[in-house]
């Protein structure tokens, strides 16, 4: 069908009554996502969206009451770790943290705790997930893609939209789009997502959007060479970036010569991945 989320996903939103949370929750709701609950501590008992979605004080209570199995987090950065831990402690199997600016130390602790819990985390600092026509779980605009056979995985936000938009202009849709986020410590990585796409019968080919910093793309290249049967097209942003300067994402630091765009492109090319020069070119490299 798709990976991670579909129309059966029962979505809970942490921070549903905040400014950003409310805006995007409404977008998700309008898209047709099965939003079953919101959580804002201190606002339990309220209802939102014309009385259609109940708000709870805690994730545990919300999960017990609604059977939520996905949580999207929109709370401010300093509370994000607590929100992720709460969702994991309540054993929500898929946690998507949109919040950007979460301290690395918090994420290190969250990851260590989550690793014991066997739950999926996507993000933080990511646009979330979109399975076109079924579920929008995060902030990827719903109108820039349509159902199709291309799995999309990306470390970037608007760059992903650019790619989806170019695909749509060429009448190509996607099975699921996954924004994994660009922070140095995060949840789901390229390999995890590629594995899921490889196993998904609705996905025939994959687009992978990387950027400078770290070595996840290189590891993904290795994985692709060994295990992927489906074709992969990739774009790596940051060829023109000077080394050692922080590029908005903490993740986009070139660490002492490691993690340059050249290096990543080379590794991917060797693994048989087609490389696009710019986002719009991707669409033309996909199989109709």
């Amino acid at each position: 069908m798709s990976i991670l989320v579909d129309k059966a996903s029962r979505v809970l939103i942490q921070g549903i009554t905040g400014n950003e949370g409310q805006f995007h929750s409404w977008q998700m709701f309008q898209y047709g996502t099965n939003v079953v609950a919101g959580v804002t501590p201190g606002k339990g008992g309220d209802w939102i969206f014309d009385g259609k979605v109940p708000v709870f004080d805690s994730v545990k209570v919300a999960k017990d009451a609604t059977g939520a199995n996905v949580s999207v987090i929109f709370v401010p950065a300093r509370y994000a770790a607590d929100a992720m831990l709460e969702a994991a402690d309540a054993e929500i199997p898929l946690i998507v943290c949109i919040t950007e600016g979460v301290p690395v130390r918090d994420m290190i602790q969250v990851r260590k705790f989550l690793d014991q819990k066997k739950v999926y985390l996507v993000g933080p600092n990511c646009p979330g997930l979109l399975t076109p026509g079924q579920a929008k779980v995060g902030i990827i605009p719903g109108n820039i893609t349509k159902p199709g056979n291309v799995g999309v995985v990306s470390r970037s936000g608007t760059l992903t939209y650019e790619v989806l938009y170019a695909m749509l202009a060429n009448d190509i849709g996607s099975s699921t789009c996954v924004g994994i986020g660009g922070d140095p410590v995060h949840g789901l990585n390229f390999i995890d997502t590629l594995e899921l796409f490889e196993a998904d019968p609705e996905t025939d080919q994959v687009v992978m959007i990387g950027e400078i910093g770290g070595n996840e793309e290189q590891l993904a290249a290795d994985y692709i060479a060994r295990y992927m049967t489906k074709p992969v097209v990739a774009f790596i942003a940051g060829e023109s970036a000077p080394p050692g300067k922080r590029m908005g994402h903490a993740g986009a630091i070139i660490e002492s010569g490691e993690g340059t765009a050249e290096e990543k492109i080379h590794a991917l090319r060797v693994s048989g991945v087609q490389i696009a020069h710019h986002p719009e070119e991707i669409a033309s490299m996909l199989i109709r």
Partner: protein
Amino acid sequence: MKLHEYQSKKIFEQFGVPIPKGRVANIASEAKQIAEELGGRVVIKSQVLVGGRGKAGGIKLAKDPNEAMKFASDILGMEIKGLPVRKILVDEAVNFEQEIYLAIINNRSNNCPMIVASASGGVDIEEVAQLSPEKIIKYNIDPLLGLQDFQARDVALSIDLPRVYWKNFIKILHGLYHAFWETDSTLAEINPLVITKDERMMALDAKMIIDDNALFRHPDLIEFRDLDIEAPAEVEARKYGLSFIKLDGEIGCMVNGAGLAMATMDIIQQNGGSPANFLDIGGGAGAEKVSAALRIILSDPKVKVILINIFGGITRCDEVAKGLLSSIKQTKIKIPIVVRLVGTNEELGRRLLCDSEILTADSLVSAAKTSVLLATGGEL
């Protein structure tokens, strides 16, 4: 946020890592006085946030207070890699037997702090890492449990530290680890950690980088931010929550999202142009943020064209258009602006711009090509 050596040493000292006696100064006469207090022989160290200070002449050993004053005066007049030296650290001169490298950074692959150590510390550590990687020890720490004594001993063993120094080393490593962890650092580095001729250990140099995202937990550290060393444009950008980095090219860029901003710069370069900056206005930027971004770009006299690439998601295209129009009204902008707007409220945004002098493009590639053409003096 990068800390100066003297700031990092201050933190190290709080966490029990021994440092040489010394003090920071910003005038040469003060250096003389400090040298007198410290007994004459001192090291004068420029406090600038770049590597290679020593090779650039920014670190000098003075044999007496008068020489200290002279060197201080020289160094305070220097610029190192474009950064003016505003402060110097005057430290007692220390005679040592061995230089050890000791650092804690985050290991992205294992999501945990990692100790990096080497018996061959000093200025050439990067060369050591290149030529003899086996001389660099890497050791992961469980972030919830924290550093344990046995691990500190394992590190001491790995770098063949003589046993007489183990107890001291373990204490220093614990101090460094706590300094790293408690201050939300992404790097805490001692290079060199020396064994002195009189058999003590101390951190002769110190480097820390604090996670900007965690500064809300450390109001005391925010004071450490050294605005001097940042370009005024970058300071201004931070004020508005913009992510801005000055580069050397001629095409100013304004983009929403870091990845898309890099991709935009890449396309400019692929088409023969060169970006003047990286500027990410972030998600959901309103009109005010857009005008500020424009002002910051225009403050660079080398900019010949501005390319604005907005993919509206959280960000609304009409808000961006409004910001642009109000800026244009206020300032007389003499250089061409090329705009590409897609996504949320894109129609509304384009309609707002159609009566202005702003050029619009319908693809990223065409926007880049137009900008390069205009920057190189071509005409449409």
